[in-house]
C-alpha cells in the first residue's frame, strides 16, 4: 500500500506537485477521516432534506392558510439567504443561546447543526419541486380517487405523492447534487470534513493546488455517484405516457 503511495507521490512530483503529505500517517489519516465524515454528512443530509422537503410540501399544499403561510414564509427566508450565514446564525448564535438556557445538556454537535441547517435549506428547494409536481397531478385523477372514498391524507400519500415524485425527480436530483457540493461549507465551523482536513494541511505546508485537485476529484466523484443513482431511479420509476 505504502509502495503504491510512494509511486503516486513520485509521479506527481515529476509534474511539480507536492503530494508528500500522503506519506505522513497523521495527515493521511485526517484526510481519510475527513472523506468518511463528508460521505456520512452527505448521506444523512440527503435523507434529512428529503424528509424536510416532504413535510414542507405537504404543508404548502394542505389548502389551510394557517399551515401553508408559515411554510411559505420559512421557504422564502431559507431560499433567499446564504447557507453560510444560516450556518453561522445556527451554530454561533442559536447554539450559544441554547447553551445559556439549558447549560451543558445541549446535545447538538457541530455535525448535527450542519445536518439541520443544510437539510432545512435544501428541503425548501425540494418542497418547491414537489409542490410543482403535486400541482401537476391531473385533477381528473384526484377526482376519481376521492370518488373512491380516499380521505385527504390517503389521497396525498397514495395518489399525489407517488406521481409528484416522478414528475419532480429531475429537479430533486439536481438539488441533491447541489447539496453534495454545499456540504463543503461545513469546514467553516470546523466539522472535520474533507475540506476542513485539507485546510489544516495547507495552512501548515502551503500545497494548496495539490489539495484542490484532490478536493475537486472527490466532490466530482460524489456528484457523479448521486447523478448515476438518480438516473437509475428515474429509469426504474418511469411511467408509460410520460417517458421522454
Amino acid at each position, binding site marked *: 500500500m505504502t509502495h503504491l503511495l510512494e509511486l503516486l507521490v513520485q509521479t506527481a512530483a515529476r*509534474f*511539480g*506537485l507536492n503530494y508528500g503529505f500522503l506519506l505522513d500517517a497523521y495527515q493521511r489519516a485526517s484526510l481519510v477521516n475527513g472523506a468518511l465524515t463528508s460521505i456520512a454528512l452527505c448521506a444523512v443530509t440527503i435523507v434529512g432534506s428529503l424528509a424536510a422537503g416532504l413535510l414542507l410540501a405537504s404543508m404548502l399544499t394542505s389548502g389551510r392558510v394557517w399551515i401553508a403561510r408559515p411554510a411559505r414564509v420559512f421557504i422564502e427566508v431559507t431560499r433567499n439567504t446564504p447557507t453560510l450565514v444560516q450556518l*453561522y446564525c445556527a*451554530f*454561533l*448564535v442559536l*447554539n*450559544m443561546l*441554547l*447553551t*445559556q438556557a439549558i447549560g*451543558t445538556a*445541549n446535545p447538538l*454537535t*457541530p455535525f448535527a447543526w450542519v445536518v439541520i441547517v443544510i437539510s432545512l435549506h435544501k428541503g425548501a428547494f425540494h418542497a418547491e419541486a414537489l409542490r410543482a409536481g403535486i400541482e401537476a397531478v391531473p385533477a381528473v385523477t384526484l377526482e376519481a380517487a376521492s370518488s373512491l372514498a380516499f380521505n385527504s391524507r390517503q389521497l396525498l400519500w397514495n395518489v399525489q405523492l407517488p406521481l409528484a415524485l416522478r414528475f419532480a425527480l429531475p429537479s430533486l436530483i439536481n438539488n441533491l447534487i447541489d447539496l453534495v457540493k454545499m456540504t463543503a461549507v461545513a469546514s*467553516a*465551523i*470546523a466539522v*472535520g470534513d474533507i475540506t476542513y482536513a485539507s*485546510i*489544516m494541511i495547507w*495552512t501548515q505546508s*502551503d500545497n494548496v*493546488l495539490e489539495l484542490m485537485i484532490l478536493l475537486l476529484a472527490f466532490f466530482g466523484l460524489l456528484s457523479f455517484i448521486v447523478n448515476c443513482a438518480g438516473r437509475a431511479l428515474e429509469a426504474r420509476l418511469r411511467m408509460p405516457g410520460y417517458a421522454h
Partner: protein
Amino acid sequence: MPYTRSPVARCLPLFVAALTMLGGSVAAQADATLDKIQQRHRVVVGVLLSGGPFGSIDPMTQKPKGLNVDLAEDVARQLGAEVELVPVLPANRVQFLQQGKVDLLIANMEWTVERGEQLGFVPTPFYRVGGTAAVLKDSAITRWEDLKDQPVCTSQGSSYIKPLTGFGADIKAFKSSSESLLALRGNNCVAAVHDATLINPLVAEGPEWQNYRAISPELNPAPSVIWTRPGETDTQARLDSIVKGWHRTGWLIDAEKRHHISPPSPALVELHDKFQAAGA
C-alpha cells in the same frame, strides 16, 4: 525560501481556468524589500484585524485601528514611505508574505523555531505574549495536560496548534478568534486557546464572561516580532534599529497604555530598561 513551481504546475491553473489574459504575465517574485520600499515610497504591511486592542476596525471611519496599526504607521514614517495596510488572517498571513503580497507582517505572530527557519524576522521583539485557555469556572481543567482528548477551539494557522496537538487535544480551528470564542460559549469545546492579551481582558471584564476563567501558566510565551521574507538582512537591520528606538523612548509602553492592553507585558518594561541602559 520562496515557493517555486515547475513551469508545468504554473500552467495548470491557467489551463483549468482558461484565462488567456494571464498569458503574458508572470507570478510576482519579491525584489530586495528595502529597495522596493524606497523605490515605490510605499511599504505594504500585513496586520491582523480580529477585533480587540491589537487590531480592529473603527466603526465611525471604517479604518483599521489598534496597536498593530500604530506600529505599522510608525515604521512607514521612519522609513519615509506611505503605509498600505493589508488585513490578514492567521490562515493566510505566511502565504501573503511569501508570495510578496505584503512586505512585512505585524500580525500577532510569535517567534517559534519552525517559523524562524521558514521566514526572516527582526531580531528585537516588540512584544511578548503566550497563550492561555478560557474555560468554564467549574470545569475540571486546571493544567494544559488536562486538555488531552478534549475538543479545543483555536484559530486556523495559530502557533498554539502544535503544542496543543502535543498535549493530545482534539483541535477545532476556526477562521478567526471571534468564531472560536462563540463556539466556546456554545459548549462545542471545553477551552478556547488564544493569546493571553485577548483572553485575559475578556474573562476579567463584565457580565458576559463571568462564568469563565483563564488557566495559567501561559503556553509558550514567545516574543512577537516583525516578520520579513528570508534573507532580507538589510530590511531586518533597518527595522531592528526602529524597534530598539521604540523601546528606548518608551513609545511602546505608551502605546500599550493608550490601547488599554491588559495585563501590561513585563517584557516591555524589561526591554525599555535594557535599551535605555545600553545607550542613549
